[in-house]
């Protein structure tokens, strides 16, 4: 299967978020991803990158990459960092039915990420650090053949 794939490398500060969002928006445009799905992909990506910046690197900065891949009708966004290991099970899922006054702060980012895409997978290895793969199904409408694919099998 031919794959449209582009990668963005950022320094890892909150001020990089607009750059990441512009990248996802532009790639969605190229892949023909329509508005509600494009919004969902931007949201999931920002939540993922905010986690990397604030938790994996503790706000101190640290390089990470965001890859956008079109796999047939599906879009995969892969975020890779070499910061602290992220354990999604350590973050309790917020109970969104509880009144706000009684809710603990936090946890909304991961929750929104999971709600916005169809698949979320976290992996960690000592060699490669954290790898987060997010996939949204049946949203790409433009064939990757229209765009020269970067054959990057790394």
């Amino acid at each position, binding site marked *: 299967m031919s794959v449209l794939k582009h990668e963005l490398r950022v320094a890892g500060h909150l*001020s990089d*978020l*607009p750059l990441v969002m512009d990248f996802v928006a532009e790639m969605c445009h190229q892949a023909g991803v329509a508005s509600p799905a494009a919004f969902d992909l931007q*949201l999931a990506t*920002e939540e993922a990158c*905010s986690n990397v910046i604030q938790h994996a690197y503790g706000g101190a900065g640290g390089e990470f990459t965001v890859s956008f891949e079109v796999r047939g009708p599906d879009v995969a966004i892969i975020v890779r960092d070499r910061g602290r290991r992220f354990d999604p099970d350590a973050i309790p899922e917020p109970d*969104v039915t509880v009144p*706000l006054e009684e809710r603990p702060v936090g946890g*909304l980012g991961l*929750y929104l990420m999971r709600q916005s895409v169809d698949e979320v997978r976290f992996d960690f290895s000592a060699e490669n650090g954290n790898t987060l793969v997010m996939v949204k199904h049946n949203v790409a409408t433009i064939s990757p053949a229209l765009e020269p694919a970067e054959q990057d099998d790394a």
Partner: protein
Amino acid sequence: MELSTVDMKRCTLVRLGGRIDGSVAPELGSKLRAIMDSGRYKIVINMADVTYASSACLRELINAWKGCRRWNRGDLRLAEIPPNIDKVLDLTGLKTQFMSFATEAEAVGSF
């Protein structure tokens, strides 16, 4: 992010626009805190021109909402929420928590 405020007779109207992501959400938080610090706890935020909001934006809205409502001194109410933003509020269970209105006039008039 674009933000302008108008002090009305009974509340402060905040017109918010653009993309509210994690890079600008702290600025939204400090603007809302400044309104509360000036003794104004009845706030309407017109969301009509907001094109994007993430959990970073929601956190600031929740903090301000709690600050306004403390000791029953006020409330933070939303108006003219665009569909994409409405979905985010709905997913996170905030839609039932914040009072929201279809028009700015209704929201301002609710105070």
